[in-house]
């Protein structure tokens, strides 16, 4: 069971307080994109073996969403940072959109 530090509550808490909310840094495209591009946004997510940027929400705490970089093999949490911050995305070797 993961131990996550909410970047707003600043205390390590058990996974039971949180909900997973999908991959982070998915940019919602403008509505004039093609059907294929829109479907890519809707349905396709990366599934890396290793570092993964994802969103969690502190459901039983401050109810705020935040970003986590987690290693999908070791489950080590490599970074935790608020929504809106993007610089740490370089951790996964993916250029900011």
């Amino acid at each position, binding site marked *: *069971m993961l131990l996550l530090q909410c970047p707003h509550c600043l205390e390590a808490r*058990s996974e039971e307080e949180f909900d997973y909310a999908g991959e982070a840094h998915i940019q919602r495209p403008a509505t004039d*994109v093609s059907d294929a591009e829109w479907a890519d946004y809707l349905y396709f997510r990366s599934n890396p073996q290793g570092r993964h940027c994802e969103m969690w*929400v502190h459901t039983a705490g401050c109810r705020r969403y935040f970003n986590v970089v987690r290693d999908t093999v070791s489950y080590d949490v490599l970074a935790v940072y608020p929504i809106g911050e993007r610089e740490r995305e370089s951790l996964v070797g993916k250029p900011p959109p």
Partner: protein
Amino acid sequence: MTGQPRRLPVGGRVDRTSPISFTFDGRTYQGLRGDTLASALLANGVYVVARSFKFGRPRGVVGSGAEEPNAIVQLGTGADALPNQRATQVELYDGLVGASSAAHGLRGLIDAARRVLPAGFYYKMLMAPPILWRFWEQVLRRGAGLGTVPQGADPDRYDKLNRHCDVMVVGAGAAGLAAALVAARSGARVVVADEQDAFGGSLLASALHIDNRPAAEWVVDAVSELRTFEDVVMLPRSTVVGLYDHNFLTVLERCADHGPSTSGAAARERLHRVRAKEVVLAAGAIERPLVFANNDLPGVMLASAVSCYVNRYGVAPGERLVLATTNDAGYRTALDWQRAGREVVAVADSRADPSGALPRAARDAGIRVLRSHGVVEAVGHAHVRAARVASLNTAGDALTSTARRINCDLIACSGGWNPAVHLSSQTGTRPVWSDEAVGFVAGQRRGLHCAGAVTGAATVAECLGQGAAAGASAARAAGFATDETEPLATDEAPLDAQQALFVIPHSRRTSRAPPQFVDLQLDVTAADIELAAREGYESVEHAKRYTALGFGTDQGKLGNVNGIAILASALGREIGEVGTTMFRPAYTPATFGAIAGRDVGDLFDPERHTPMHVWHEAQGAVWEDVGRWKRPRYYPKPGEDMDAAVARECIVARTGVAMMDASTLGKIDVQGPDAARFLDRIYAGGFLRLGVGRCRYGVMLKDDGMIFDDGVTVRLDDERYLVHTTTGNAEAVLAWLELWRQTEWPDLDVYLTSVTDHWATMAVVGPKAREVLGRVCSDIDLGADAFPFMACREGHVAGVRARVLRISFSGELSFEVNVAAGQAVAVWEALMAAGSADGITPYGTETMHVLRAEKGYIIVGQDTDGSMTPHDMGLDWAVRHGKRHGFVGERSLALADYQRADRLQLVGLRTVEPATVIPEGAQIVADVYRMRSGRVPMRGFVTSGYYSATLKRSIALAMLKGGRGRLGETVHCPLDNGNVLAAEVVDPVFYDPDGERQNA
């Protein structure tokens, strides 16, 4: 000591002054305090304790701890029964009742059956005609030998508790105690757990000296020092059964299992949920048996187990010992046996030149040591009578002499040690093969500090040193400073190199030799594993599943590594290359009682009650579970079934006045300068121009354009809205709104608060609703013009501040009265009193469903399943395109697939037989005449089906391909009882299509 023929006159940690009695398989025996069930049975000369899983062969005690594969017993009877216990870990108490789990084994299937039950038996049977499998399943299930479940509710009490610590020490043997001492002295909060009743691990059965004291004394001193620390928790009889991510551990403490049931007076077991900053894994190692022919005969035991019974329990399970070993450590057993006054007939050492200190000591003691020798076969029927011994080549893979027979009644074997890597591998860390340790050792992981035999350490001195180092590194990682510790000296002999040998070859090839067992619990032999390799199961994971190696309740603690070695040899690969399978929690079986704890009965899952719950209960409401809510489903009068009650409630709602508790609907208070803009983007409909005091129905889509939720939103003020959600979706909708607010539109100034529990809602419904409400509400003009449909007014109802909404989910004139939850019962009762002259009737969810279906109103989650667009459901009127910022899901509605004319669309169905209700879930087929062929295209399915008392006929809502273009057609619904119902496709609004009643 009468009746305990195998008990030694002195020695061991048992109390000989007052024997206690116990029962096993119906016979009464005597044992001693300090015994385990296994040691007591051995003391009584009971060698056959089980029949094997597949072949019904007699089996005896092999080990002395968690690794025991054979002596699996059932304790107690009736509701107290505890199946699947290892006799080697069951502490004996006066009056204990035990039974062999495998007493109902396949006694009919004698050994000859071995050839018809080869490896992959289950797979091969599953591939055979299914009728055959039914036969085998009957036979196998009866013979599974895993005990019987308790009969009746468990009278015992189980607890769960949370613990937090800096350093969790798993195992309190030499390494664990050394680690705990260092960590505790640093000031860290330490938890020490050990599965045995006493701390000390293998030191409890050791003749060694540590720091010039007998090992047992050193243990006593270490434990007493640890007990002086306030922040150290010592948990004996506590098995760490699970090690999960980020150092979360589950520890099963057996508080009262070592005595008769207390029937709930004291906790029987406790599950500690421990979150540790750092973990010291000092779980030790389990001796590896050697694989040879008939090695499952009772009287073949692990060498360490023989030593343990002699030294710890004062039991000699035989007279004449032959020791088979590949290493120096095994010689300790020969010396222990001789010290106990028993005869060591021979030591068969596979190595060419055993010249270490222990082999020398054995020879000096006059013990016959056969070098380059192995035990190739055990001889006997129900018990060992002799060992066949032959000389081996240097590699140990071929015999260089014919076997000769040596009479004996006990064969102890030592094939090296398997580090107990189970916990470390539970989080996905693969164990690593070590040529030096000749075993898989724990892989590296952050926050895990391994010490002692689990790393392959062989001597107590090494274990003590590693323990102190691991305790220090764990404490430092948790932020504590540690002092240097002096290494502790022991008087143990150094150990020479062991030989990596797993199987003693037989003169006949494996498939023809007597069975060479690898996994004793599941009767997997070396021949089975070779067969699996020949049949192409090269991956260890596949071979495991094909042969069932390691599938028993012991998870292959004894057999796995030998099995992997045999597979590697058959494939011509290195053991490290083949790798090991993974271990899962629990390390040893855990009871459901401990896992459940107090979360049983009423506490199993919390229930949510509305403020009027007690009133409903008093009226005899029948409940429906909606999410966690208890909602009244209907209120039967004496003699009424559900259909009769619902018909009555429906008629009253349509002709008089009725009332429903709608408090469970989700309510979200949306406030802020941008509240309107926010809702306009979230909902498919337009919300910018909704006037203050007005209500609007809205559908919420996921970004894929599919309906997610629906409900009525009220504008309470310029910057304040109240959003209603469906009962089951309230939490999900709030999370969804927060997701968009926080991640996509952080620029919007808007705040969301759940107020579901703060307000109680009562819907006053029916043509007489205005009249009845008017009797208890004087400050709101309820007139049709002053208070029109879809409006909101504030005032007082029964003297209580109330918010009244003129909205309707029934299609009738309806007022939904919202008051503070704490005052709801008084208002509800006042309304009931006000309507009593008009026959006001409470109604439940079932009537609500019928009323809304008559009006063609959908229920999200019943009529939709996450694959329906507003267009599919005929809700285009609730969608507004061309808004400045669009809305969530709008782009998806333009996707090509969403335009198909043959998408499922909501329609109504009128059965040709008006009295027959179509069951929900019924399929709609295209061509009833082709059904006999078994293949007929589906056209759709029924989502709601009721009998409408108002319309005096059955009605249904259904999703039908291209449905709106098929009005007037007849469709067919085949049922599972063979009947086929015909129905006409109609508009989904069955009643009052122009809404005159709700607008009245």
